[in-house]
């Protein structure tokens, strides 16, 4: 499972953990995260994330 990092603030999304407060189940692949996802720390859109 991969991790993706927000290039604006450094927040990390781990596919293994998901993000339960946004309704994203553990194990959700990055490509399956909704397109309107925003960084929960700084609000950056999904396209600002890169694979870490």
């Amino acid at each position: 499972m991969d991790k993706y990092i927000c290039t604006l603030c450094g927040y990390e999304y781990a596919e293994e953990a998901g993000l339960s407060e946004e309704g994203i189940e553990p194990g959700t692949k990055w490509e399956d995260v909704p397109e309107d996802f925003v960084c929960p720390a700084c609000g950056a859109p999904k396209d600002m994330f890169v694979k870490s």
Partner: protein
Amino acid sequence: MSIKQISENVYSIGVLNPTLRIFDVIMKTDYGTSYNAYLIKNNGKSALVETVHAKFFDEYLENIKSILGDTPPDYLIMNHNEPDHSGSVAKLTEIYPDIIIIESKAGAIYIKNIANKELNIKTVSDNEIFDFGGGELKFIVAPFLHWPDSMFTYFAKDKILFTCDFLGAHFCEPTAFDYNIKKEDYEAEYNGAFVYYYNAIFGPFKPYVLSGLDKIKDIDFETACPSHGPVLTKKDGGNLDCAIKAYAEMSAPHKNEATYIPIFYCTAYGNTGILAENIKTGIKEIIPGADVNIINLNMADSASAQLHLSDAFLIGSPTINRDAVAPVWELINTIDAVSMRDRPCAVFGSYGWSGEGCSNLIARLKGLKLKVSENPLRCQFVPSQDDLDAAIEYGREFAKSL
């Protein structure tokens, strides 16, 4: 500002700040600014679009009450949450505790840390349509125009698009409308303020400007209500079509014909300068077609533009008083860290005693997240033949790394 009716159902309720000369520390505002805010009424429902800078809350509230009387507004739409627009949210919700605040997802994160109180927030997504007194409000999420939270709001009934900072300008127009500017012969001043505003606010986000323009190209609007400067119209003397065209032109992608590698430097005794010449020789050996432009910062006035046009760059400074020199820092202060992220660069310089200039520059460029070489080219006092050879080799290695 007294209120102005923009269309059948929309009013301008913002305030003018004509004496402001510096905005947010970094922008010059030769013509002051306006903190625009709007009120939409439709079949008994009312929505505010944006608030104003906290210092102007009383005037803003007076404007709201002059239209709504004692009836509380139903909604507050926050297209963007920078404090010049969101500064009055906390005070407003003391007066109108039941108001529903409409935010993008990112905006919902920001406003919590700006108002620092419990708020009644409704989050909207891109292209969401919201029933508003039987009419429709449509939200168009527009990230990085100019913050992650930015969105536009479309009120179809009156063909108005509320664009927040997009298409705005720091400019006071007391009548609120663009077509009145020309009559008063302030056209050149407004156009200058419009372009300056674009460069400062949207220059770092040109690809996002193009995608924003694409998102609104099929929207039927005749009026754009930005959050600073005049309302843009298609009427005689109006500027809306020109403004959109100008945004598209100013945001068009730039591609250098040849790899452009400017070498910026300052030099007190010519020592850092001659390193620049030799680095250029090394670069040209590896990339003969490269456009390597040596720029003496003490003589240049367009260095920042050249820096931003670069594919890669080098910067040289002597060390004086344990640091790089002021003209070099002034250039680095202009770096737009969004569009220049990961730009390859390297630093060099001659020094006399300790030579911290290069390491201080590297630390700063790393902090801005540019791709800076960890190994500077340094030389004590006057470059020897060995130092000049090392400079050529440094240029070769830098070119190979691109």
